[in-house]
């Protein structure tokens, strides 16, 4: 289906989210929509799928003017969207997910639908079991399920919003192959992303957004620097690959075993050097989180010993670890890291050690203002943390870290952040490494792991690889290990 957008305009209060967008997407193409967070990509997609109505402008489907009134209306007209977090129902079965919301008699024909799921699943070489519960599936499989469902409903346009966040390299390859196949069958695919390399790899043409405007349409062959320039309006340098790894062993893990009710990790031996950065790769839920929580003192190993600076810390609690210079930045910033409802100033008051009963508001404000400046946080001392954007929340978390730290544990430190923020955050972390802090972090972005780690551990189904030197490995090699090959 051919999509034409003419003079689309949308404002939220003072924010001009879409400013006179004109874009034509012919059928059978994979159209990339590239831009930073807040560039207006999502707003445009929400207009196209009926969540929002444009303030002015026209949408034409196959040259017919339409008014899309709701997400359901969009699907009826043939436009389906795969959301970043698939809009499905985790505690329910695959087949019920398919049936939910379908029109028809009181009792649906389950047998028939089950067969259709299997047929579609085979056609695209997916392994979807109609009787499985959605919550037992990985994000990648849930995406596959949602794509099948939308195709089953007969969509002619498939919009994907940042679909590669949280899926494995194998699943990504499969997803891309599927999209290419769909496009060759005449479907229109709209691929929304802020990841340059993915857009370059997949898309037939790319539209770049910046601050609510469509700033450029690019056809292949692509040049990365051209994209970067369009996205930021300036050239952005990726930091030098510098290592501050020393020869001093800071942490030593001896025959560590970790367990929760799903997973068992055995015999982990590792020495973390001062100033070293270790990246943990693997599908989510393969044990990286257990590993980080063990290093943070939040989880007791079932066997083995942890030595910090030669002292046995096994079985000590979180506060003992904390006092010896260990800090933990969890992935869920608002749930575990920050306290929603409290202001930035209040966060700084809580994180600084004070002995007085009453808070010195003035100095707390001053401190907060100073940190806001150094950490480039877009907010004021009285902003509540949940009002900050994801990137600024992450900056706030970094600003809250104590001055002298020896080990920083991070889960997905740059997830959901734009490239500029990510680069900035890593430059700050590198400064910490220069100060002899070691860093252990998880990420689902292999490029990030390769770019910043000194050594890499791969986790797969309860197995932990020996440390891999980041200089002598490749994305492909890591992808294979993550997918369970080569063990």
């Amino acid at each position, binding site marked *: 289906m051919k999509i034409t957008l003419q003079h689309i305009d949308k404002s939220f209060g003072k924010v001009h989210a879409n400013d006179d967008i004109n874009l034509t997407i012919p059928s059978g193409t994979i159209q990339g929509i590239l831009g930073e967070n807040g560039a207006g990509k999502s707003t445009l997609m929400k207009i196209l799928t009926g969540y929002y109505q444009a303030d002015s402008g026209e949408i034409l489907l196959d040259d017919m003017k339409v008014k899309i009134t709701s997400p359901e209306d969009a699907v009826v007209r043939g436009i389906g969207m795969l959301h970043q977090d698939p809009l499905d129902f985790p505690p329910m079965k695959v087949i019920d997910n398919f049936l939910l*919301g379908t029109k028809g008699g009181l009792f649906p024909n389950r047998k028939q639908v089950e067969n259709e799921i299997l047929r579609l699943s085979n056609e695209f070489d997916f392994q979807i079991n109609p009787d499985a519960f959605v919550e037992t599936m990985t994000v990648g499989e849930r995406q596959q399920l949602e794509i099948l469902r939308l195709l089953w409903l007969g969509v002619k346009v498939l919009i994907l919003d940042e679909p590669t966040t949280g899926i494995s390299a194998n699943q990504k390859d499969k997803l891309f192959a599927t999209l290419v196949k769909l496009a060759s069958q005449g479907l229109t695919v709209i691929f929304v992303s802020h990841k340059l390399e993915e857009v370059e790899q997949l898309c037939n043409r790319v539209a770049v957004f910046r601050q609510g405007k469509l700033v450029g349409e690019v056809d292949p062959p692509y040049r990365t620097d051209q994209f970067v320039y369009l996205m930021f309006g300036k050239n952005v340098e990726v930091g030098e690959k510098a290592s501050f790894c020393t020869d001093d062993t800071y942490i030593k893990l001896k025959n560590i075993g970790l367990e929760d*009710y799903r997973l068992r990790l055995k015999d982990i031996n590792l020495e973390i050097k001062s100033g070293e950065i270790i990246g943990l790769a693997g599908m989510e839920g393969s044990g990286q989180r257990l590993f980080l929580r063990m290093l943070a003192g939040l989880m007791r190993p079932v066997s083995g010993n942890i030595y910090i600076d030669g002292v046995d810390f096994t079985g000590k609690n979180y506060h003992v670890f904390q006092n010896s210079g260990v800090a933990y930045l969890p992935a869920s910033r608002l749930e575990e890291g920050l306290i929603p409802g409290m202001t930035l100033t209040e966060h700084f008051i809580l994180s600084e050690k004070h002995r007085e009963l009453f808070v010195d508001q003035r100095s707390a404000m001053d401190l907060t203002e100073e940190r806001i400046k150094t950490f480039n946080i877009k907010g004021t001392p009285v902003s509540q943390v949940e009002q900050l954007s994801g990137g600024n929340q992450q900056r706030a978390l970094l600003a809250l870290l104590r001055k002298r730290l020896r080990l920083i544990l991070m889960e997905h430190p740059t997830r959901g952040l734009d490239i500029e923020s990510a680069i900035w955050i890593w430059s700050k972390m590198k400064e910490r490494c220069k100060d002899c802090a070691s860093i252990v972090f998880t990420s689902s972005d292999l490029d990030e792991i390769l770019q910043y780690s000194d050594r890499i551990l791969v986790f797969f189904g309860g197995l932990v690889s020996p440390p891999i030197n980041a200089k002598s490995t490749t994305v492909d090699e890591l992808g294979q290990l993550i997918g369970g090959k080569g063990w």
Partner: protein
Amino acid sequence: MEIATLTTLAGIVEYAVPVLFASIGENITEKAGITNLSVNGTIILSAMGGFVVSMNTGSLLLGFLTGALIGAAVAAIVAFSSITLKQSQVAIGFILALLCRDLGYFLGAPYTNKPGIFLSKVPIPGLSEIPILGPVFFNHSLVVYASYLLIIITFVYMYKTRPGLMLQGIGERPTAAFARGANVKALRYLYTILGGALVGLAGPMYSLAVKIGWAGQLSGLDGVGWIALAITIFGGWNPLRVAFGAYLFGGLQQLGITLQSTTDIPIQILQAAPFPLMIFTLLLVNVGRAEWVERELAAMPEKPRKVISKILRALRTSPPASLGVPFEND
């Protein structure tokens, strides 16, 4: 089997009926994502209302209808304040629970211990003559038979029909349900009021069928509504398990009555016993989710660990993910 045993079993089936209606009603409401905490007050107010109306009109049907209307009206207040005004469901529900209870006692005072009419037993021909099963299940008043139907219909509706799937959807993930065409707010209104009407029926079921009459505070209905709420959770928001919970509670109550005549245990203990037992069951059901249990399990040897974690997993239930969360179309 002895006659006394059969009477006891039949008593359990009968005693469970009002609790069953109330907890399945609440089950439906919570499945849609709304908690109606007013159950306890609703039952007392509708027990009184149903009794008074049937006494004055001579119509049992009008009595039950009054109960359902009271329940629906209270639920409508909960729905309006939580869905439209986006106020705290807990606060409004709790206040209504207290208000309706006291309103019931106050308005019902002139009718205390007055003679009324009540539902008589209607043995089902044929079925009631089956040995054991007949007298236990098929020699009751109509409300008991209605409760059998309620369990089956609710279960089939929720899990096997298209609108039932959507009911699960709006409580689980309203944003996704909206994307699939649901009018989330309207449906939440519908199921809150429908569930409330079922809760409201529980009142006249006491005063017109199970615990006949109206005796004000001495009717002994205070507390039943809270148990119904607990049973909804214990039953994991699944009508079959909820029904099981209701029968368990009925059984515990009946056991208390039987033991009163045969042992020296103080009557207060027997009356109160079902409540801590329910709490204990709730703990057992939900303990599998606690982190310390996972830690303890991890430290156990292989064999018992597997068995225990299997049991815990089978027992474990999770509430509708968006229970109590207001919804905005965006």
